[in-house]
């Protein structure tokens, strides 16, 4: 019998789902008068009678105080009687095979009643007054459902049973690659979603010709996964011939010779004092934290899945990066998450949306909800992030997720050994995410939705939390030799990497499946979430198995590591793959690319076109611009307090609503040693010069850490390059130029890169017209440390009468600035970084903070001095007065526009008590500084230039202007 239980809020309760839907429809321009009723429900298949289902409705599925139910067999007319006078009913169901955690939990809870239940699915139900067909279609496609994961059924449900998969009959498939010509191989690569180049296909052809046989489908897939851009980073680790205005350079391995080289040089200089532990080797970078623990950090992107299904893409993005620290060393405990997003502006006109593209507002809501639901459920505080808006992210949003973990110092190394069992632990394997690794390396097209639906998935955070709980116990009991996560490429990548120097044999029919019907290839390359692989010595298997069983976590032996140098896959004793590990990991022909950078002509920014007498207006425009505006709506949806370690929160100040420069947390409740987390990113500078964009991003990430109290000699950084199609020499050229800056600035600042990731081909190809490439987007994430969190400071002004200092030199650097953006001016000098001097500034500011001389400190970034002063004032609820003629600046920067709004790097606005000024100034020997003003109290920000007012504004107005745009 197939039962349906529909649930609605009682008439005296708000219908939140209907309200949300109305708001979203109104966002997209549909008349707000739309009448909607909304409910949700369960389809329950099993040997159940009516009284049993009524009992489930009352005791499990609904809350009688706030909800009412309708219970009947599917198809019964009582289920589609008009509701609230609305006649048109629409059902939204997840497509079969899409992860449905609620249904899974409900099924287990129903079974706990002792009832015979076979399958459960959830549904959403909407009621409308009769609508024109066109409006209905539009609503279904744009608001009610996402075709990538959901299906819409208009009218009454006509299901008779819930599909539970059909069985699979083994059939070994080989691909006759040996006989193919170039065109056939290119077609195979594209249509089979292998996304390999012709040269790579030819290398495979040659390999199998020499072996005298054709590959099986799973062998080809394994090669495609391992050789994918996503897994091997072949472009940036490849040969690049780079040219720019000062000459040319040939790289054998670009990343190795720039970013990795910088870290190697820093470590060499540190010698005995080297505090890096493992860089660019494991699933996350590892640095020393204290005597007992190392800190690990990894940041990943999940861009293409988030473009198609924002909730699921972001959800599995954060779920995936959490598994990176869990799979680092023998497993780190996650202690904090970060997230940075890039979207098109949310006010993008809905009618101009290209086909296949979701509206940016919907993307943003979905992405935020996806990160929220996963991170909060995992019990990991999300402490730092940023959002950047630019129309070029329309078809290709960026979603960066990071996780920091703590790793016991004696658990930092891992190595699978011959004879170890290969154990799959955590979630089951389904068809989800098939071709995710190769898909994320391809450009998005307007066809992507239908082509790659399988690459979209939903996570189940609780499965991962359960996995984490047992993993840490198993780690501490020493039950395994190695661990890694199943990310892109699934078992293919995880087992392939762990067994690279050894060899492995896998028995695919043993893998626990979500449903029947998966072929051996699908099992091998599935990217189902929440799975990890362990190398378990046989004599520990029993204990591990019992531990997992005691907490309801599934662990299964799926193979064995053998010293054969080969990867052998079997399905029911039939061999389906036999690959040479050497060929798999080193057989790929090198990628060779041309890269060129041509600097654009520098044009002056014509300040004369700026109405100088309305500096207050300019300040308000910048505060209300999307990149600067408060992100409180997002931040409050994340649990940033869980684990109890939060010291400097993302929102600070008198009313807990000011923008903190960085987050500080105590990962150990019994210690006052702290971790500091911040980021830097400036896509707008990239158009002027990617070199200075990268340098600025590093300076920003580091100065954010320093601003709250981090020791600048102990800051590790991470790079995430998101670029357009690097087959174009100009696109790759701008990336190489950014990487060169990473090298130079990291060494000069002494801030080693410890981990990184790149995501290339971030372009959207509309049905007609040119592809839209994202702007070069380099995210720098920083992980700082502080000896005693009691030394930390926040950015809000503290007391009337205190002095305000500007530390660092102001230049005429308005190019790419928010001043230029809001005033619609172009040209100008991009902010540069004098890294040698910057290091001295950072050390001096740190000295002052660590010795307790600083009451508040804020870095100067978007919007320069004026924005920093405004934020400090309204966060502290205290007025301030500044004098521009006291700003330390070079000659060209002596006009008000530059003094107020220049975005020169390495600058801080600092509040100091009058009785500490002498000691504070002593810390600043040899550094540019000026005593620029005072905390006056009151409710105004006043900025003067040679005695005449330039900016005068009420703090309430400044704050409201800053809070309003993204207060959804």
């Amino acid at each position, binding site marked *: 019998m197939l039962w349906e239980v529909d649930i609605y809020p009682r008439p005296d309760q708000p219908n939140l789902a209907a309200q949300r839907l109305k708001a979203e429809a109104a966002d997209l321009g549909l008349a707000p008068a739309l009448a909607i009723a909304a409910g949700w429900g369960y389809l329950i298949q099993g040997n159940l009678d009516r009284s049993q289902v009524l009992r489930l409705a009352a005791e499990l599925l609904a809350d009688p105080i706030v909800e009412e139910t309708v219970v009947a067999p599917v198809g019964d007319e009582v289920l589609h009687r008009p509701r609230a006078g609305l006649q048109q009913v629409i059902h939204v169901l997840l497509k079969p095979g899409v992860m449905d955690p609620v249904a899974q939990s409900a099924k287990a*809870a129903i079974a706990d009643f002792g009832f015979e239940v076979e399958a459960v699915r959830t549904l959403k139900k909407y009621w409308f007054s009769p609508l024109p067909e066109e409006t209905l279609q539009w609503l279904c496609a744009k608001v009610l459902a996402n075709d990538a994961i959901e299906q819409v059924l208009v009218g009454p449900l006509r299901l008779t049973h819930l599909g539970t998969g059909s069985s699979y009959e083994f059939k070994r498939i080989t691909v006759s690659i040996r006989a193919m010509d170039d065109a056939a191989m290119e077609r195979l690569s594209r249509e089979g979603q292998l996304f390999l180049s012709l040269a790579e296909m030819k290398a495979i052809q040659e390999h199998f010709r020499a072996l005298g046989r054709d590959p099986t489908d799973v062998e080809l897939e394994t090669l495609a996964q391992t050789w994918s851009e996503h897994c091997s980073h072949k472009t940036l680790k490849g040969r690049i011939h780079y040219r720019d205005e000062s000459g040319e350079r040939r790289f054998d391995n670009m990343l190795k010779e720039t970013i990795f080289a910088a870290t190697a040089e820093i470590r060499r200089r540190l010698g005995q004092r080297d505090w890096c532990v493992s860089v660019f080797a494991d699933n996350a970078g590892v640095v020393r934290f204290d005597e007992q623990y190392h800190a690990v950090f990894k940041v990943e992107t999940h861009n293409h899945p988030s473009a198609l299904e924002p909730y699921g893409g972001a959800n599995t993005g954060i779920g995936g990066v959490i598994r990176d620290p869990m799979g680092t060393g023998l497993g780190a405990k996650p202690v904090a998450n970060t997230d940075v997003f890039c979207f098109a502006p949310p006010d993008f006109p809905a009618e101009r949306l290209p086909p296949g593209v979701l509206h940016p507002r919907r993307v943003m809501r979905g992405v935020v909800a996806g990160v929220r639901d996963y991170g*909060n459920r995992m*019990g990991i505080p999300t402490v730092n992030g940023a959002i950047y808006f630019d129309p070029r992210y329309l078809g290709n949003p960026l979603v960066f997720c990071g996780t920091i973990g703590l790793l016991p110092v004696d658990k930092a190394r891992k190595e699978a050994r011959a004879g170890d069992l290969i154990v799959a632990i955590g979630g089951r394997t389904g068809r989800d995410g098939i071709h995710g690794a190769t898909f994320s390396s391809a450009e998005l097209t307007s066809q992507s939705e239908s082509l790659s639906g399988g690459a979209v998935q939903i996570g189940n955070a609780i499965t991962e939390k359960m996995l984490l709980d047992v993993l840490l116990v198993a780690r501490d009991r020493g039950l395994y030799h190695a661990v890694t996560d199943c990310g892109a490429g699934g078992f293919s990548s995880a087992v392939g990497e762990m067994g690279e120097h050894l060899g492995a044999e896998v028995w695919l029919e043993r893998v626990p499946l979500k449903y029947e019907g998966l072929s051996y290839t699908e099992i091998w390359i599935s990217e189902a979430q929440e799975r990890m692989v362990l190398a378990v010595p046989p004599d520990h298997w029993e204990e591990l198995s019992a531990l997992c069983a005691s907490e309801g976590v599934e662990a299964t032996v799926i193979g064995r590591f053998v010293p054969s140098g080969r990867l052998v896959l079997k399905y029911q004793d039939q061999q389906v793959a036999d690959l040479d590990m050497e060929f798999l990991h080193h057989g790929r022909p090198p990628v060779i690319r041309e890269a060129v950078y041509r600097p654009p002509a520098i044009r002056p920014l014509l300040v004369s076109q700026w109405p100088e007498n309305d500096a207050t207006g300019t300040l308000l425009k910048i505060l209300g611009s999307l990149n600067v505006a408060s992100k409180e709506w997002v931040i409050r949806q994340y649990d940033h307090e869980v684990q109890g370690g939060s010291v400097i929160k993302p929102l600070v100040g008198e009313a807990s609503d000011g923008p903190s420069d960085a987050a500080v947390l105590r990962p150990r409740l019994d210690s006052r040693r702290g971790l500091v987390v911040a980021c830097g990113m400036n896509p707008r500078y990239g158009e002027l010069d990617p070199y200075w964009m990268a340098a600025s991003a590093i300076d920003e990430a580091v100065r954010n850490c320093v601003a709250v109290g981090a020791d600048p000699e102990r800051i590790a950084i991470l790079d995430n390059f998101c670029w357009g199609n690097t087959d174009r020499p100009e696109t790759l050229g701008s990336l190489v130029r950014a990487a060169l800056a990473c090298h130079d600035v990291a060494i000069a600042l002494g801030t080693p890169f410890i981990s990184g990731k790149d995501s290339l081909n971030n372009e959207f190809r509309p049905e007609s017209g040119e592809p839209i490439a994202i702007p070069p987007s380099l995210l720098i994430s920083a992980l700082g440390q502080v000896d005693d969190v009691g030394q930390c400071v926040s950015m809000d002004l503290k007391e009337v009468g205190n002095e305000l200092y500007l530390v660092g030199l102001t230049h005429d650097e308005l190019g790419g600035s928010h001043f230029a953006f809001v005033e619609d001016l172009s040209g100008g000098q991009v902010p540069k970084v004098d890294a040698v001097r910057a290091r001295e500034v950072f050390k001096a500011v740190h000295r002052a903070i660590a010795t307790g001389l600083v009451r508040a400190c804020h870095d100067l970034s978007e919007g320069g001095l004026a924005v920093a002063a405004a934020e400090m004032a309204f966060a502290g609820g205290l007025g301030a007065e500044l004098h521009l003629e006291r700003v330390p600046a070079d000659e060209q920067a002596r006009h008000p526009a530059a003094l107020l709004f220049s975005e020169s790097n390495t600058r801080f606005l600092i509040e100091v008590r009058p009785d500490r000024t002498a000691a504070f100034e002593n810390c600043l020997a040899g550094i540019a500084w000026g005593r620029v003003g005072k905390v006056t109290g009151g409710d105004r920000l006043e900025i003067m230039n040679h005695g005449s007012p330039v900016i005068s504004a009420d703090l309430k107005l400044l704050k409201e202007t800053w809070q309003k745009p993204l207060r959804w």
Partner: protein
Amino acid sequence: MSARPRVLILRAPGTNCDVETAFAFERAGGQAERWHVNRLLEAPQRLAEFQILCIPGGFSYGDDVAAGRIFANQLRRHLADAVRQFKDADKLILGICNGFQVLIKSGLLLDDDPGLGPPATLTWNDSGRYEDRWVRLRVRSAKCVFLRGIETMLLPVAHAEGKFVPRDGVALEALAREEQLVLTYCPLRDENAGFETGTPYPDNPNGSVADVAGVCDKTGRVFGLMPHPERHIDPFQHPQWTRGKAREPGDGLQVFQNAITYFS
């Protein structure tokens, strides 16, 4: 009785505040153990080894179906006898956030009214979303053991389903008469305001009826609350500690100390 009362921190799949809650009980002088619910299901009689039972925050079973519901049904269906004996033995039970949701939905905190069902529930915030913010709380009665000697507290809330809703006016009145509505939200900036008018959003963060943030049973020994006392036991957790507003210890520690002191 041992000098250090034993505290059972009962966790389920998705519980995630167990470590810091155990830490808070330890700091208050207790001896805390974290157990997976499966371990107690195997041997419910072992609950008697403890003096305090605490169900901490998190997302038990993902909060799938409704927050706390599945864990609550487990308690109701498999552990009700053990918990009732525990209660009758003059011991203490605390539910924080998800633990409060579990307790109220299990029927162990508020007695069902015969024929009418539970007197109150916790449901979706009026805002329709998860929110993390600091709130000011006022203790409204001396009935609850956990709140002895406390007048107000500053604590963080972090939840999506924390709106307290009574079945009807009669049920609310009955709970008020028994002094079970022990903890309420009050205006963040003025703990003496809001008595008559009620506390508007966001200081009442979820739209709870009568600003209710925590309730106890008729004995005062079973207590559930949405805010997280374990997240404010130390001055560096205070959101304005850099403004010199924090005190040593944090406001929440007293909740745990009261529980421990009850057994001395």
